[in-house]
């Protein structure tokens, strides 16, 4: 059967195999090629457990999902069109993700008795047959054997030959989605520049896979996803933690300060440390401290010394930082704290995503210790948020918290990146020796104090965590003064909202009907859901909240324009509470705490349900 060609607006492919099967690399290559062919896309890798489990087992399955299209793509896809399964564990654990009638490309050499056993499946079961019975389209290929065959003349060891099988898969999927393997060939040439045998083998196998697709008449259809209508500009594919790191470096550059980053490894924030440690050439100091408390306090020390100071962690580490964060509030020094949220409470689900640290970000400190809280909507958005957070921290002399999450951190999407000259300069209120007398807690019209950096003659001063006298900063136990300072700190933070643009809905109806309020990584699923329903004539709009504190001053007006409000969150209703108390509207929550993002279908159902209920 020769495959017909079918144009698709969007497609979702999931590569799944053993941790040792190179699925992340395969997915990454497919992503790069897809991006270069002009699709919009969104990806998400999924490594279920933290420790490498024995090969072939379900805990050892590593997955990489890519959703791409000729229209805008906002999520890594709800349901999978094509599942590539390298072994029985991958197939059995991922099959449920397939859409009805979806396509399975199975490595039949990975489905033998041994593999079934490792996957914890009764050896008598016919996994592939079962898949077909469930109505999936099955393409079974002896990927392992064909790889070995393609390499029979290669001098590589059997183990190394076996390792190349992911390239066979990639070539095959390239063919299926009408992509050429050249870009990956170039990549392999570079990657294995010094290892001729491996290089040649991989390229050979890649091509073999592609040819196999062409010749073997395996597929009913071949798909083509035409380029998306993307705004002109330069693009790159980027992960959230990467975008965030680059945003920090850029902000340092734009403020003329050195970036000091202090962190302690923790999933899923560690990559920020890795990224910045690698970037020493950009003048970054990346410090792996002995714990999270040392990290944030080292950062505060560096901030006192005049650096742009940043620390990142995930929930448990942020918990440890809260005491010192209060100190930063009291000192009124710039500091950026990133929380890449993961499943909680406690150690929870360290490799899974969640949005359940919002309450901690907003209220998790002793005393009245307000600070701006921003959230990233998607991987590329992390760049903008990081930049803005630094800007706020430096220009308002305050610690700022960024909320990202595991989904954003490890997910990727194409980013139309700016040139550095387009970005604004950041202007921290630095006190210079020639500015004359220095009064540490004297405030300007924005309520911001001046930053006198050690080395500045005549501005020597002492600050600390005790309440301080207004203006002078001397220790003060005075009652009225305490009230005044509490209010001044609060108002300073509230004035940050003056810098926001006017609030607008992201998509859908501009007034009337139901408003869905999203924050953080729920952006994509909500956007997809609202656009789909709105296109079908349903009165629903999306408002995406980036600034969780202070809330935009015109948000109340926007909210009033609607009759119903839905707040989907990957927690038990944390933003919900804030919105209800602030605007006294009977908003409802859609809450999911399963370590995975919303499917847009879930959001759609909730919207429709709410609207119907009202009718």
């Amino acid at each position: 059967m020769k495959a017909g060609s079918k144009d698709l607006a969007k497609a979702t492919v999931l590569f799944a195999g053993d941790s040792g099967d190179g699925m992340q690399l395969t997915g990454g290559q497919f992503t790069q090629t897809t991006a270069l062919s002009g699709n919009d896309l969104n990806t998400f890798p999924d490594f279920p457990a933290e420790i490498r489990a024995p090969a072939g087992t379900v805990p050892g399955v590593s997955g990489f999902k890519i959703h791409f299209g000729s229209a805008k793509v906002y999520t890594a896809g709800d349901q999978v069109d094509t599942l590539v399964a390298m072994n029985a564990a991958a197939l059995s654990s991922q099959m449920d993700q397939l859409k009805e009638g979806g396509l399975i490309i199975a490595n039949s050499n990975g489905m033998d008795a041994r593999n079934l056993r490792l996957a914890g499946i009764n050896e008598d079961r016919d996994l592939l047959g079962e898949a077909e019975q469930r109505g999936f389209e099955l393409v079974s290929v002896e990927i392992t054997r064909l790889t070995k065959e393609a390499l029979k003349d290669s001098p590589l060891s059997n183990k190394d030959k076996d390792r190349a099988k992911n390239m066979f898969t990639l070539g095959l999927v390239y063919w299926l989605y009408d992509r050429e393997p050249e870009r990956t060939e170039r990549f392999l040439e570079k990657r294995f520049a010094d290892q001729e045998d491996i290089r040649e083998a991989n390229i050979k196998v890649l091509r073999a896979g592609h040819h196999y697709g062409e010749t073997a008449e395996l597929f009913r259809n071949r798909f083509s996803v035409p380029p998306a209508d993307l705004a002109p500009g330069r693009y790159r594919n980027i992960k959230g933690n990467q975008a965030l790191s680059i945003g920090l470096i850029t902000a340092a550059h734009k403020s003329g300060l050195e970036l000091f980053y202090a962190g302690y490894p923790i999933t899923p924030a560690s990559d920020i440390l890795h990224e910045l440690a690698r970037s020493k050439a950009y003048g970054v100091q990346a410090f792996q401290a002995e714990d999270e408390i040392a990290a944030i306090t080292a950062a505060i020390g560096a901030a006192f010394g005049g650096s742009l100071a940043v620390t990142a962690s995930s929930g448990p580490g942020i918990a440890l930082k809260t005491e010192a964060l209060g100190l930063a509030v009291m000192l009124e020094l710039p500091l950026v704290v990133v929380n890449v949220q993961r499943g909680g409470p406690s150690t929870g689900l360290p490799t899974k995503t969640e949005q359940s640290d919002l309450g901690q970000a907003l209220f998790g400190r002793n005393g009245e210790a307000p600070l701006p809280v921003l959230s990233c909507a998607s991987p590329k958005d992390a760049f903008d948020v990081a930049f803005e957070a630094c800007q706020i921290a430096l220009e308002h002399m305050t610690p700022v918290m960024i909320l990202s999450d595991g989904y954003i951190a490890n997910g990727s999407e194409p980013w139309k990146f700016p040139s550095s000259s387009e970005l604004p300069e950041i202007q921290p209120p630095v006190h210079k020796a020639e500015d004359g007398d220095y009064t540490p807690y004297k405030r300007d019209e924005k309520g911001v104090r001046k930053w006198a950096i050690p080395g500045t003659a005549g501005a020597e001063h002492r600050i600390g965590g005790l309440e301080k006298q207004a203006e002078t900063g001397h220790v003060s136990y005075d009652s009225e003064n305490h009230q005044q300072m509490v209010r001044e700190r609060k108002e300073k933070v509230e004035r940050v909202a003056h810098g926001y643009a006017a609030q607008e809905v992201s998509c859908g109806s501009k007034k009337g009907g139901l408003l869905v309020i999203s924050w953080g990584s729920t952006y994509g699923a909500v956007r997809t859901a609202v656009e789909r329903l709105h296109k079908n004539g349903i009165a629903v709009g999306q408002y995406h909240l980036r600034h969780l504190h202070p809330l935009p001053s015109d948000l109340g007006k926007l909210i009033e324009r609607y009759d119903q409000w839905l707040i989907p969150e990957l927690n038990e209703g944390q933003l919900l509470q804030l919105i209800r108390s602030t605007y006294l509207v009977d908003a409802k929550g859609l809450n999911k705490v399963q370590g995975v993002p919303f499917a847009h279908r879930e959001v759609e159902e909730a919207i429709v349900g709410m609207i119907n209920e009202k009718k």
Partner: protein
Amino acid sequence: MKQVKSYTSKDFATDQEVRWCPGCGDYGILKQVRDLMPELGLEREKTVFISGIGCSSRFPYYMNTYGLHSIHGRATSLATGLKMTRSDLSVWIITGDGDGMSIGGNHLIHLLRRNPNVNILLFNNEIYGLTKGQFSPTSEQGKQTRSSPWGTVDHPFNLSALALGADASFFARTVDRESKHLRETLRQAHEHKGASLVEIYQNCNVFNDGTFSAFTDKERKQQNTLHLEEGSPLRFGDPEKPVVLTWKNGAVGAEEMGASDPGSHWIHDPYDRAKAQALSRLSDDMTYPRPFGVLYREERAVYEDLLAEQQKVIAPKRTADDLDALISGDAFWQVGQ
């Protein structure tokens, strides 16, 4: 080059009233530090005092330099961040036995191993002063305090041993009452390149009065203290008839000075780690006097120097272009023109 100002001790005083209890040992330390600053040629604007929380940690408010009175136990980690980014500053850490060894113990040992060029003044009064008299990790076993009305059962730390175990590159001990010794010890700490830890016995006359009187009382101190001087024998007791320590086969002994062969005298060498370890344990069981002065020092690479060297190797001056290269990465593409 800008001319270095010449300061006096007074220039290092602030307008803030000093608020320790009358008679507190902290006053004497403050005076010596203020006096020392101009002697060392330190500039106010290039000097930072960082403290945690405790009576002792109020210190920065009284020094007319840059100062940070931070949170409990974290002065060391704050200072690490500061020194990593501002190697040009002279950084002085002020901490207490509770601040530095109880809640802050971890940052202290990690700082010591990393060895940034800072000076740590640990005011050891063997008590929690600010919180009104609980035992600390240096309080002697059995001590009755507000939190140990029946006597503590905790075996105390020996700070010198702990510091050596954590690879401190400089450890010295001095006492609030001996102003000259105190100042000289701090001077040596300052001169040492690397992390210098100075344990200062400090009398808390309100909650722990007289704990160190064995080392400060005129009558008793000769017998109980051992003044370490590089190149000199370790002797103590009646100056007319001193006792001298010996070091034979790694074991410590004592002989009357006159009666013994000078070849067997233990001559103080602060660079000798084995001897320093012996010194750190010398008076654990009170059979020998307590050593004061520099117990140990070693030349070891300084943290911020290592960082700077690494930076030099890997970072040819960055330009705006580099930033754009970072932003774009090397796998970008163009849409439209």
